[in-house]
């Protein structure tokens, strides 16, 4: 029967999930279970939690996430280029200089705009 190599990845995925869940299940069986209201409070150094936990965060975190998306997608373009470079020749290197120049320009722009400052 002809099958696909990626099936191994699928099997491994199942094995990993089983590997993670099995000890939790075993712990369910043999660990003590004594529930109490105090014990299930969120831990805040012994003080009762005050106010809402799921709050709005500063914009800084999202800006970095945005930067990440931009660069990660641009990085993806580099992989086919790198993998096929052997048959592309020197001109591909010149083209990549231009492309990476744009990438760096984006970084320099963000830098100059102060987006990369963490305050």
């Amino acid at each position, binding site marked *: 029967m002809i099958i696909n190599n990626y099936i191994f990845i699928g099997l491994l995925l199942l094995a990993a999930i089983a590997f993670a869940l099995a000890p939790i299940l075993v712990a369910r069986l043999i660990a*003590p279970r004594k529930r109490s209201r105090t014990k299930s409070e969120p831990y805040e150094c012994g003080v009762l*939690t005050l106010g809402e936990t799921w709050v709005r965060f500063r914009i800084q975190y999202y800006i970095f996430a945005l930067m990440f998306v931009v660069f990660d997608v641009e990085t993806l373009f580099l992989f086919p280029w790198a993998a096929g470079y052997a048959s592309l020749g020197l001109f591909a290197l010149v083209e990549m200089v231009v492309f990476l120049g744009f990438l760096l320009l984006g970084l320099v722009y963000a830098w100059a705009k102060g987006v990369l400052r*963490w305050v």
Partner: protein
Amino acid sequence: MTAFAVPTSWIFWAQEQAVELDRGLAVRWGLWLVVGFLAVFPGIVAYMVLLERKAAARFQDRIGPNRVGPLGLLQPIADALKLLTKEDLVPRGADALVHLAAPVLVIVSAFLMLAVIPFAVGMAPVDLPSGVLYLIAASSLSPLGVFLAGWSSRNKYSLLGAMRAVAQLVSYEIPQVLSVIPIVLWGGGLSLVAIFDKQADYGWFIASPPGLLAFLILLVASIAELNRAPFDIPEAESEIVAGFHTEYSGMRFSLFFLAEYLSVFAVGCLATALFLGGGMPIPFARFPLNLLDGSLARLVVVDLILLAVFAAKVFSFVLLMIWIRATLLRLRVDRLMNFAWKYLTPLAIVNILVAGIWYECVIRPGALTLGRWLGGTLVTGPMVAGLVWLAFWVNRREWAGEAAGPGRPSLEGARPDWETPGQTGASPQRAH
């Protein structure tokens, strides 16, 4: 039904990695899954924890665990038993399902990373033609797990830790991914087996100026990806207790712990396979591979040599990580982000071009000779040194205040990390 027949070319998402399922393949896959992934790797990782505890103790002039069994060798088993008998707690108000899914996701990420590592000749669990890309995809699952853990716990420390973790992980993922591109360039493909073969012909990839720079970037970025000291702000014990896993106890906590060390192991294997020539003992020699003559006995001997050397390299890498953890202090958050975006990312981007030049000087002309290697080093070496100097020169103002002497870090314009709904808009003035 012919109208619905799927053209074979549609299956390209899986790159048509067709293999014949016979008894040999079934046995091999079964062995990898049951013996490799469910027994050997977790075993190695359990003893890595002991190694770290022992080594860290020595760095701090202590002895470390030595009570359970001879030299404390049974400590991992004792720890596992202890954690197994701890109560499984889910805090009130937490999202129970996500709270459970988070550690599973982190474990899955670490496991999947190990699936394409070529440990020796014919000893990669699978040889995917998209190996490197697959590795990156697998490793970027773990930030998701970390974030889900912090979010679902409904604990302020956890959420703060999770936000910090995600900001750090996504920032360091860019240089990590970029530092691998020179390897793909030189290896001529994404398959890790092809990259290993290429290193047999052209020497370990670390033995070149751009390769060395890429390796150092990967090392730093990997430590940050693993949330290990000096990049452990997301779980800084002294300020946010344990960050994203504050609310995890018992077996769930130990899953995070296991996943962290599994990732350390996986990153060690990754660095060894990509930069340190896999199991090759000598940088520029085909040494154990030239013994192969097709006979099984020779293959076993060669594989044993390769496995031993591979293990030694991973062990050294892990020791290096422990050493760094024991030596360096935690970075301040603005320095941490600066280091990813203002040093590592530009360096990694330009390093790709230097790697291209190295390819033209050394790999394109044909077989490796000392003259070509020296020529390539003379051309790219000064470039790499200049780039590193330039990166520090551009950022020189950051260090200017530091040289003047110890002082309070500038908190001008600093604001708290989160906004409670009442105080959005104008930034609250800090009372001095």
